[in-house]
């Protein structure tokens, strides 16, 4: 279970000529590789390692550890990575509660942290830090996009639900920030809840004209299957977390036609993305998810900064990261002043391609979207 793997990201290009740096760079990745949430961490890891392998650099060493989705384990791993492994850059955490347990203290110890997923509002606002970069999104972003999309779609009386934990509150806050219509109901479910009969009955009785939900992972699978079977046929909208490539196959036809918001999709048209989707599929034998694209982008950001600056020169390295001079799978990519992405967020529809359920872009919900916490961040 303690999958301790020292992977030396090696391509065989190692050789003679001058390498950019005299000594290698050590990256510490703490992510979720076992238990119920493992699919997300595995995708981030695979995307990240794919980018490192494609870069052909053999001076980047990645130490990968499994946090088992437990904050206490993640904290121990972080201490070990910083103190005995002496990593230069850290990355990998999926869940916001783990991120809040690990990242502030890692930053206080002088680490650089590149987040491939979790983007809690605290780290974007009051607790932002010059050495913290989020390559994925601020937690509210996709929900804000869902709110904006609901206006466009003409929903006027929506029922919203999310689990009762920090990211769930962020989700409903983000949705309401953009949504202009009435709320038919607002429900917080239990984290890890598997049965949604009670909530679906409330939706049926509420007179809503549509439903927004944020239920990541297995919770979303359960909700969608039960919703499809309930006879309630209101349109559903949600963020991409319940519709990623790993989950869709388990939901099956129950998700067909559902609209969801995402900063990435496999059919975004640019060369980097096409090459990423093709090489990921060739390497791992499955379609990439948005998590894989985030891991891939995180590694490419890191590599782009290493090209121009030495990680030991913190100011130069930070400036190189801020420049974000890399080819993102999302096309245009830039950091806002609080080191969170400014990016387009798309609306996707779940479709079936042969036997495989996947997403296709049907529109753009928000263009060049930043986040609501920029002003609260002073650095």
């Amino acid at each position, binding site marked *: 279970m303690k999958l301790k793997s020292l992977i030396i990201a090696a391509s065989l290009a190692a050789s003679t000529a001058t390498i950019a740096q005299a000594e290698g760079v050590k990256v510490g990745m703490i992510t979720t590789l*076992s238990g119920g949430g493992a699919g997300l961490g595995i995708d981030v890891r695979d995307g990240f390692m794919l980018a490192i392998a494609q870069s052909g650099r053999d001076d980047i060493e990645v130490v990968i550890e499994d946090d088992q989705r437990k904050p206490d384990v993640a904290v121990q791993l972080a201490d070990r990575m910083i103190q005995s492994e002496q990593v230069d850059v850290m990355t990998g955490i999926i869940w916001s509660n783990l991120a809040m347990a690990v990242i502030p203290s890692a930053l206080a110890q002088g680490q650089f942290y590149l987040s491939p997923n979790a983007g809690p509002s605290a780290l974007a606002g009051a607790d932002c830090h010059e050495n913290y970069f989020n390559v994925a999104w601020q937690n509210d972003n996709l929900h804000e996009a869902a709110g904006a999309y609901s206006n466009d779609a003409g929903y006027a009386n929506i029922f919203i639900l999310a689990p009762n934990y920090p990211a769930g509150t962020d989700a409903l806050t983000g949705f309401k920030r953009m949504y202009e219509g009435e709320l038919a109901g607002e429900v917080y479910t239990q984290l890890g809840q598997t049965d949604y009969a*009670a909530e679906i009955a409330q939706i049926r009785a509420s007179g809503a004209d549509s439903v927004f939900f944020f239920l990541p992972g297995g919770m979303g699978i359960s909700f969608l299957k039960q919703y499809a079977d309930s006879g309630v046929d209101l349109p559903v909208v949600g963020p991409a977390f319940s519709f990623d490539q790993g989950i869709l196959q388990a939901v099956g036809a129950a998700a067909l036609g559902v609209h969801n918001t995402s900063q990435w999709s496999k059919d975004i048209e640019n060369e980097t993305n096409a090459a990423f989707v093709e090489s990921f599929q060739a390497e791992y034998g499955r379609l990439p998810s948005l998590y894989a694209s985030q891991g891939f982008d995180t590694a490419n950001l890191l590599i782009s900064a290493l090209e121009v600056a030495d990680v030991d020169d913190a100011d130069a390295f930070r400036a190189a990261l801020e420049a974000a001079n890399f080819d993102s799978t999302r096309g245009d990519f830039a950091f806002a002043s609080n080191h969170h992405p400014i990016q387009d967020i798309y609306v996707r529809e779940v479709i079936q391609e042969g036997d495989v359920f996947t997403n296709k872009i049907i529109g753009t919900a928000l263009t060049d979207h930043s986040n609501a916490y920029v002003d609260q961040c002073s650095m």
Partner: protein
Amino acid sequence: MSLLLFIEQTLNGLQFGVMLFLMAAGLTLVFGVMGLINLAHGSLYMIGAFAAAAVAGATGSFLLALVASFVCAAFAGVLIEFFVIRRLYDRDHLDQVLATFALILIFSEATRWVFGSFPLFLDKPDWLSGTVMLPFGIEYSLYRLAIIGVGLVVAVGLFWMISKTRIGIRIRAGENDREMIGALGVNISLLYTFVFALGAALAGLAGALVGAIQSVQVGMGEPVLILAFVVIVIGGIGSIKGALIGAILVGLTDTLGRSMLPSFFGLFLEPSSAMSLGASLSSMSIYLLMIGVLLFRPKGLFGGV
């Protein structure tokens, strides 16, 4: 809250309770008859769901999938009992907890190794999809109705087995005095294997039934396991009747609490605080129920004196 919604939520609670009963029945038999705390019961639930998903994926038949879940979980139960549990009967509860916790980790990682980290697909059959109109114009999911039916049939079957058959008499005797019935010539270790396999098979069946409307993934058993322990503590350890009553109480409390508490607080609080207070209190409700029951009946509702 309208009467129709209340009736629908009651049905939901009943369905949830009946599902919990399938889990709790095995747990309470094993705990009551064999004196063994089996934390790996949730893994058997997971094995049932994965076996059903694999068989349904290969054959397309939901009934075959249910049979497979029952058989695979029972088989896994026999293996566990034979190789691990048998060595634990005379040991301390702490040793049993440690060993069966290790089994959870082993089964979770083995399942991940075989089936991968991504959730599996398992859907209900077409002939159980959709909704039916019940009297008074209640529209209700046919599949959930079927789960209630299956659970009640299993409950009746278990009562009949425990109270009327020879094997039931032996199980009850074993619960009271295991040395004595061994001395009377009953093969006690075979009996224990049977009880364990029966509990495992019921857990596997529950996993398959529920897997069709939830997500089939590694670690799906542990949250249910905790609820099943609450059920058997409320019902009284070792009592099938207690498990049934306890399961339905827990199912109703949880479902009605989730749907009614927020609107109840909404009567005299502003919406946002009513919402968060209701959500927090409803996640505590079944534990409050457990405390209430234990205050007045420390051994559970049907736990004897």
